[in-house]
């Protein structure tokens, strides 16, 4: 390993860690029977799912039969007295239930709301990141977001990412100790119950020398500006900008990230995010989309916000909810 890989104090920086992982893991061989074991589990899982479907279908049939009998009795038929007046109230969440076209927050909606807030500049390589929904109702498993390459002045592009998601991780709003370093961090309470943390750091982060004398690191790579904003209702709005168009590029790029911290504070604290992030408007989730990762490339018709995609104050717009990725 090259000593250039080491941080200021010989710390195992990212490249050293990457090398160590490869050295350690490439010697690991998968056990025999791994694939066949996985196939056997998959077959069992399919069998269980079939059983669940059959059970749910039977429950629906029983419920329907109960309702028919009740109706028959109410009409003067000869049905058992015990069924008179019984309501078919079986509510089984069938795995095969059709997925309703429910509205939900989409990456497209976030992008349409974000574009008018950006300063003038060149935008390329836009990637939408659709949220994944948990099985629990009202819960987003991953953020709705967008990333793109932005050049505000023709002096070099940087990467920008923006996301919005319910968050309970308050540790994300704690400033690291940057004493005596080039990095900065501030945290403030804003009007309306907003909490914001603004951070300037490097891609391979800066760390301060500890009280017990352990040397810190000056960091390396692109300059980064981060704005982490927490809304009063628990949603988190995060915006990053960097000084290079790709991560892990190995260069510093521009002398500073493409957006200032002040710009990022203004964007993340814009009222539009509070109207988008309304927990009560989240729909009950009806089916689980695919879990795979995938970035949706922006369709070519991404342009000015339209009436159908512009966020309203009450709902989640017209997201497709396909949950790709």
């Amino acid at each position: 390993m090259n000593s250039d890989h080491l941080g200021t104090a010989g710390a195992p920086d990212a490249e050293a860690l990457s090398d160590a992982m490869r050295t350690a893991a490439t010697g690991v061989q998968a056990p025999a029977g791994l694939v066949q074991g996985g196939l056997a589990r998959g077959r069992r899982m399919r069998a269980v799912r079939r059983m669940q479907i059959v059970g749910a279908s039977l429950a629906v049939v029983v419920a329907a039969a109960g309702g028919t009998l009740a109706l028959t009795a109410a009409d003067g038929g000869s049905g058992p007295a015990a069924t008179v007046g019984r309501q078919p109230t079986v509510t089984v969440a069938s795995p095969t239930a059709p997925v309703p076209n429910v509205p939900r927050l989409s990456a497209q909606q976030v992008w349409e709301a974000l574009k008018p807030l950006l300063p003038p500049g060149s935008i390329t390589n836009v990637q939408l990141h659709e949220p994944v929904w948990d099985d629990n109702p009202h819960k987003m498993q991953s953020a709705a977001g967008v990333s793109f390459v932005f050049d505000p002045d023709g002096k070099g592009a940087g990467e920008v990412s923006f996301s919005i998601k319910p968050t309970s991780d308050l540790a994300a709003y704690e400033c690291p100790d940057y004493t005596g370093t080039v990095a900065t961090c501030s945290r403030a309470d804003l009007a309306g119950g907003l909490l914001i943390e603004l951070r300037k750091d490097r891609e391979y982060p800066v760390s301060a020398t500890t009280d017990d004398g352990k040397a810190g690191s000056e960091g390396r790579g692109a300059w980064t500006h981060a704005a982490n904003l927490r809304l009063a209702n628990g949603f988190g709005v995060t915006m990053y900008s960097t000084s290079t168009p790709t991560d892990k590029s190995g260069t510093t790029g521009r002398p500073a990230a493409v957006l200032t911290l002040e710009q990022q504070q203004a964007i993340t604290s814009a009222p539009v995010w509070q109207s988008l992030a309304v927990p009560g408007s989240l729909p009950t989730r009806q089916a689980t989309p695919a879990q795979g990762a995938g970035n949706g490339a922006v369709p070519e018709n991404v342009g000015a916000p339209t009436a159908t995609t512009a966020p309203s104050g009450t709902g989640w717009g017209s997201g497709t909810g396909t949950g790709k990725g």
Partner: protein
Amino acid sequence: MATDPDEFLEFATARSSQLFRTAWLLCGDWHLAEDLVQTTLGKLYRSWRRVRSADSPDAYARTVLVRSYLSYRRRRSSTEQPYGSLPDSAGREIDPALRLTLLKGLAELPPKDRAVLVLRYWEDLSVEQTAQQMGCSAGAVRNRSLRALAKLRTVLGGELHLLTAA
């Protein structure tokens, strides 16, 4: 026309070794890694039609693996942090000190922090890709990466030379 098992077996055979190594770095335990990969393959087979039509079945598989690992760690919230569990015959000759030092450091990290490091520096994913696979924001990935690297520095202390001499 290939049947589901044929297609699945072809995919699983090609990808199982890499999935196993990723699982081993995530959990640090050979037997648990085997269990995680088999669970992952089982889930992939159960939903194979959806998997094969995904943009990237590889990414899909990795996502299932990482979430299976995180789900396991949530259920097993005990202090058990196995590391260094590897049969003698499991691999070719690798410096055991390096392996133990690496796993010792990773074992001290919270599961999500560990997953971030494995995805970024073993799978070589970008911040955005890591965020997608873990189901969190890019900001959370950057924050976790920062914390995890700092913790690793603290944990490894005098044993750093074993890692950096790899």
